[in-house]
């Protein structure tokens, strides 16, 4: 069996606020295999970003804290690592692309300086070598006239270009895992396609495993091999992309798929799941989706279902299927 690049087991990340403990990530387990693109989907506030930040241990502490579970990167648990050891992993073997290219680059340093910083730190390159390497990276992410862009500041670049710079920065040390947190959300649709193309190319050419966080199912269908659907800090469904789209088991996943607007159907209104992601607190009872679920039963309000496997590598956390199975 191949060793996964990343294996998150029963991860708990909490935020300790004035109004009590918020379990933003509540017992999440997932894994990313070498060369795989794993999608994590869900609405805003589902704990997708907190999961990804937890992997790099970038949760602001306080108020946040990883309270349990393990994060195995190539078999080595990152949770007990000291800050110093974590720093040697960040930006080197695991790197991250963020949502907002407008604000994620430091406005006061040149592009070259910001990209070169990582290789100089992790690879010990000198200024000149780092510069050459940076030009190469910029070329790789498809930036025209890289030698000139090197000395420009982020405000002189467009959103798409900035996101390319972010990607160049993230791949400059040739990471084994790339975490992309909604990399296309803030971009124009045409630019989105280009950026996704770029990420896929990096995945295919370098074999970089990618953890892609998004709320856009279109992106998932396009990019991912497997998907993890998250709701309110928990994994509710997990499986291969084709299984999830063809045969979604969880009512939340079904709702998400139905919410995608379609060109070939005439509908007066777009479908939406009523309600919002609930505010989380420590001792919640029952299924978290129950109050928005069209097929909720009384059992759903009382007890939380387990994540169980239904078919090859396709699992779901829902009472409907458990009760059906029991009946059979």
């Amino acid at each position, binding site marked *: 069996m191949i060793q996964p690049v990343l294996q998150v087991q029963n991860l708990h990340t909490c935020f300790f606020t004035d109004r009590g403990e918020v379990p933003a990530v509540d017992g999440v387990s997932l894994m990313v295999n070498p060369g795989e693109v794993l999608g994590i989907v869900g609405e805003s506030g589902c704990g997708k970003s907190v999961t990804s930040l937890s992997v*790099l241990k*970038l949760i602001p502490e306080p108020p946040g804290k990883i309270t349990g579970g393990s994060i195995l990167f190539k078999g080595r648990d990152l949770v007990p690592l000291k*800050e110093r050891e974590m*720093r*040697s*992993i*960040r*930006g*080197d073997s695991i*790197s*991250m692309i*963020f949502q*907002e290219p407008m*604000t*994620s*680059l*430091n*406005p*006061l*340093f040149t592009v070259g300086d910001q990209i070169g*910083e*990582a290789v100089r*730190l*992790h690879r010990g390159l000198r200024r000149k070598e780092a510069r050459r390497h940076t030009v190469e990276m910029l070329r790789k992410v498809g930036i025209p006239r890289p030698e000139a862009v090197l000395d420009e*500041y982020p*405000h*002189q670049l467009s959103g798409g270009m900035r996101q390319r710079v*972010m990607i160049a*920065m993230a791949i400059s040390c040739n990471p084994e895992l790339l975490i992309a947190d909604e990399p296309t959300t803030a971009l124009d649709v045409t630019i989105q396609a280009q950026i996704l193309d770029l990420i896929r190319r990096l995945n295919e050419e370098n074999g970089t495993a990618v953890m892609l966080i998004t709320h856009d199912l279109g992106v998932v269908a396009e990019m991912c091999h497997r998907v993890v659907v998250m709701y309110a800090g928990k994994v509710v469904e997990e499986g291969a992309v084709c299984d999830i789209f063809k045969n979604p088991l969880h009512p939340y996943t079904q709702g998400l798929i139905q919410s995608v607007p379609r060109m070939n159907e005439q509908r007066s209104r777009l479908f939406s799941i009523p309600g919002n992601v609930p505010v989380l607190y420590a001792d919640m009872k029952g299924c978290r989706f129950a109050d928005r679920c069209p097929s909720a039963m009384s059992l759903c309000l009382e007890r939380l279902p387990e994540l169980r496997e239904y078919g090859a590598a396709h699992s779901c956390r829902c009472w409907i299927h458990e009760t059906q199975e029991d009946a059979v």
Partner: protein
Amino acid sequence: MKSYVLKRLLIMVPVLIGMTIIVFSIIHAIPGDPAETILGQKATEQSKEALREQLGLNNPWYQQYFTYMGELLKGDLGQSIRTKVPIAQEILPYLAATAELTFAAMLFAVFFGVNAGIISAWRQNSWFDYICMLVALIGVSMPIFWLGLMEQWVFSLKLHWLPSGGRMNQRDPVEAITNLYLLDSMLAGRFDQFWTVVKHIVLPSIALGTIPMAIIARMTRSSMLEVMNSDFIRTAKAKGLSQFIVVYKHALKNAAIPVLTVIGLQTGALLGGAVLTETIFAWPGVGRYIYEAISFRDYPVIQSGILMIAFVFVVINLVVDLLYAAVDPRIRYR
């Protein structure tokens, strides 16, 4: 950058002209007869009239202004009524003394203020943060004269570590070249003198620098706190940079603009002369010079003093603006 500097220098011209007009008008608005002030109350009407004619006071105001501007451009600030010495010549040592004290006080204020602010923000809600902000609060509310007196009492009177006043040992004067004693003693190669000058400047600069230090610390802290929550700080951390580089390279530069503003304003205020500190520490600075001129109603000196202070502010604003541009490329390229 070049065009920015040029533009900024051009803006200075109307500001400086406006400044001279205001200062000129203020002096003209003061009631009383300058001729009588100069010659005394017992002077005859005839001699007063002769003096008015000689000084050009009978000319229309705009002609007087142009004469005044002409002299000013030649570097002539007029003559002190009290000492009969040209002001331009007389004011220089005082200006140098104030500049030196301001420099030392701001060095103290910036070094401790900025670092305390950074560490407070970095370790927000820690003991260090609480203590720093308490000290800053005390610093802002401390009366300078009291602090100065306490310093003298402890460090001069009780411990005999440092002299209680003056710029230099009277028996071993520094050979004046620039009138900046720290520089002059070095130029003369007299390191023993340099050390004595340093000892003289320590207490007054702490007294003078405490309030600016407290203000700078508070400003740095709040500015840093805002920046530390930015997305690009998270990016910097995700690159694996050490906390020190994240704070002192990525965050500090972004937090610098409001801090620079405060530093500029405080420096301007100190350069205007700190009458209290200069009096307590017998520091022969501009503050005391103007204060004495006011008590003698020495109008030309007062006028020159106001002009100098205004000029210093204009120059400091220029320097601060240029520093903004040096720090932030978005200002440079606008």
